């Protein structure tokens, strides 16, 4: 397996007119200390910093903690398992739930 350095660019993910530059790194200090953990692609945290597309639907990641409107069988699996979630590119997608849509 190829090892990557912290700070190295993983890829730029283009979706719905936005570009997300994803870099390798560690989510938490415990991962840095853990010999099993190499730097991983750090996907945006759309819960901390919400972002919406042109129609007002929020971006989300496959692994993101699902919201209270989760419609699926396994919430532990993240937004990926919700029927409102639309996979976009890589592990970034869009939540098409009307309850989460931002009205402008």
């Amino acid at each position, binding site marked *: *397996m190829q090892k990557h350095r912290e700070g190295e660019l993983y890829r730029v993910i283009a979706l719905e007119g936005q570009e997300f530059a994803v870099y390798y790194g560690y*989510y*938490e200090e*415990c*991962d840095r*200390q*853990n010999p*099993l*953990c*190499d730097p*991983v*692609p750090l*996907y945006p945290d759309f819960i901390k910093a919400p972002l919406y597309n042109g129609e007002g639907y929020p971006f989300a990641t*496959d*692994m993101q903690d699902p919201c209270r409107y989760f419609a699926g069988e*396994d919430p*532990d*699996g*993240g937004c*990926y398992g919700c029927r409102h979630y639309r996979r976009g590119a890589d*592990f970034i997608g869009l939540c098409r739930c009307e309850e989460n849509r931002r009205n402008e």
Partner: protein
Amino acid sequence: MYYAKYLYASAYAVATGTLQMEGVQGLSLMSVLPHALEPLIAWAKSNQTVVSEIYLRMTTAAVYHNSGRDREAVQHIDRAISLALPDRLFGLLAEYCRVMGLLIEERLCRVDEAAWQEVKRLHRIYDEGWAVLGGSVRGKRIVTTLSQKEREVAKLAAFGMSNAQIAEKLHMSLSVVKQAIRVTMEKSGMPRSEFAAIL
């Protein structure tokens, strides 16, 4: 002799659906196989080894079928059926249902529909066995593409542990665990509930 064995092994693997022949290499091998198998059929026929002839004819038929030459395939299937029916050697036909089920059904039902029901029953049993074996073989291939972290996380997920429990057990962040699960799903093409099959 080694090349002949390789050709027969390839043909059998294609015939039973455990090997996909694709691309230029696949096309060239598929065009050679029937010519290699026909003399073997002649040998089996002259030596009156019925089981060998059935296997060889069904393997040849599968190769023809994979190449889109069903007319030649049917000729071999019909002959194999005529050899198999008297001694009810249905298992030999059932092995090939994975890749030629429709053809076998069509040809066998013309002759003996009860025999087809028996072949279908045996094929179902074989298929369940292949699913276990195939999953195990495929699982071994998938496991080599997983990092050690992904294998450890997947192992605990297969045991039914939640993401939070896995994170605590392996001293990792929850984000890393969730990402590892997602990557494993992507690499294996399997949902979390079936991780046990790949480990």
